[in-house]
């Protein structure tokens, strides 16, 4: 890798980005405009990068057309203050208003829970079970302010006490956004794996023979443990591995393997109903689709399994994958049955 060149390229992007932002202001001084033109004329690379950033800038206007991202909420995360957001002076659009008042309710509930905690020490305060079916997803907000997004065919059991927040991943995959609370570690148990954090964001996926923990933000302690021995303590086992953001830990047998994740966005793409692949073998791609759909794709020939594929698909539209493969001349026209789609390699 030529890192000096990468650095130079990144510096041009930073500069171009500053120009895009500066020039989008209604009052740009003559001096600024002159400096910009001089900068542009210095190199075609500047110009090219500037134009590309303008495009990203334009796209950002459409990135949240359905207006599901809540400004109040984002700012509240930053300030670590949930109550204030509902009282914010800025008048949010109607949708936002409805959402924030619900969160205000959640905040009151959280306070109530804390008050209860003071009375009933060491009691289980909240225990719940949540599940999704094949092709279903949902996000749950726990009373501590953490959220858990359940992927397809997933089940969890939640138990919040005043010393520990514990989630059992019974099956499937879930994304945890853990509200910070140093006094109460957040622990996820999946088969023989334990992932524990104080406040962070991570993904746990329970497969038939292993559990994969991917850390999106912060740090998570990951260990392989005997659950019975563990139940008594809230401490992280001494042999735990500290996994940082951008890494995944595979917990299979005795050993835990960590590998860097090249694209975190791909790992969490399912939250928007999407599957992202980057040069994965078709067998993996098909297995992924089959997690989300009753209609199962079957590879008729092992020669197909090794075909590599990159792309973004709707998780609940296996037909799109099939059409893609047909068009790419990888397979013969697919044979679609009631509950299977059979793929055979192109002859």
């Amino acid at each position, binding site marked *: 890798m030529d890192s000096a060149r990468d650095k130079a390229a990144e510096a041009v992007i930073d500069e171009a980005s500053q120009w*895009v932002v500066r020039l*989008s202001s209604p009052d740009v001084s003559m001096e600024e405009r002159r400096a910009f033109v001089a900068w542009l004329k210095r190199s075609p690379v500047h110009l090219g990068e500037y*134009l590309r950033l303008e495009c990203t800038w334009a796209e*950002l206007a459409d*990135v949240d057309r359905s207006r599901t991202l809540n*400004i109040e909420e984002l700012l509240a995360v930053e300030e670590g203050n949930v109550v204030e957001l509902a009282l914010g002076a800025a008048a949010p659009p109607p949708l936002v208003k409805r959402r924030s008042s619900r969160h205000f309710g959640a905040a009151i509930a959280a306070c109530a829970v804390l008050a209860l905690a003071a009375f009933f020490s060491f009691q289980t305060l909240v225990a719940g079970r949540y599940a999704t079916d094949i092709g279903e997803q949902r996000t749950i907000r726990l009373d501590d302010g953490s959220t858990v997004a359940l992927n397809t065919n997933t089940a969890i059991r939640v138990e919040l006490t005043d010393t520990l927040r514990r989630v059992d991943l019974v099956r499937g995959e879930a994304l945890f956004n853990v509200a910070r609370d140093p006094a109460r570690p957040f622990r996820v148990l999946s088969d023989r794996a334990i992932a524990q954090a104080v406040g962070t964001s991570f993904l746990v996926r329970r497969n038939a023979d292993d559990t994969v923990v991917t850390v999106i933000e912060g740090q998570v302690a990951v260990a392989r443990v005997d659950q019975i021995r563990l139940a008594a303590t809230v401490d992280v086992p001494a042999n735990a591995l500290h996994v940082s953001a951008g890494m995944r830990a595979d917990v299979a047998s005795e050993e835990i393997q960590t590998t860097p994740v090249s694209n975190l966005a791909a790992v969490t793409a399912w939250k928007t109903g999407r599957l992202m692949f980057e040069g994965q073998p078709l067998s993996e791609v098909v297995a992924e689709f089959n997690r989300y759909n009753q209609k199962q794709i079957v590879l008729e020939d092992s020669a197909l399994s090794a075909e590599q594929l990159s792309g973004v698909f709707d998780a609940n539209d296996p037909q799109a994958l099939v059409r893609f493969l047909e068009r790419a001349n990888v397979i013969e026209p697919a044979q679609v049955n009631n509950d299977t789609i059979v793929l055979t390699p192109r002859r």
Partner: protein
Amino acid sequence: MQTEPDRRERWFQDLVANVGGDLLRFLRSRLRHGDVAQDLAQEVYLRLLRMDDVGLIRNPRSFVIHLAAHAAHEWRMLARNRLQHSEEELQQLIAEFADPADLLEENDRLHELRQVLATLSPKCQAVLLMHRRDGMTYQEIAERMQLSVAMVKKYMAKGLAACHKQMDGEE
């Protein structure tokens, strides 16, 4: 009296007023892939060097974008073996945006961008959304967040650059 440069500029203005963000999307699809992008940037660069600074400096931003859109468009026309300068150009440009393959790609890209956006600090996200999605001015955002306008711009530029670098890495 309307001079040729005036007429040109007028045409550019109309173009941007009519097509706006779509123009940039159209450009992006041409700027995205290796050699074509480089050639296009090179072409626009040469045109830029030929421009007199006085006209250019009046509104450098739209000038450059239009220059690029125009170069990209002329390429297409050349590829079709005819080059014309008329109101039809505008119609054709607009028609080109409606290419279903481009639209699909566009949707994929927005999905990706959304994921990337979510990896930024909440402050960066909020600032970008308030300006790009909600159309708040830098001044309004500064007041809302109790920051200086300079800081708002800083967050904005940082967020934009971060989005761009991550999207770039994925292409």
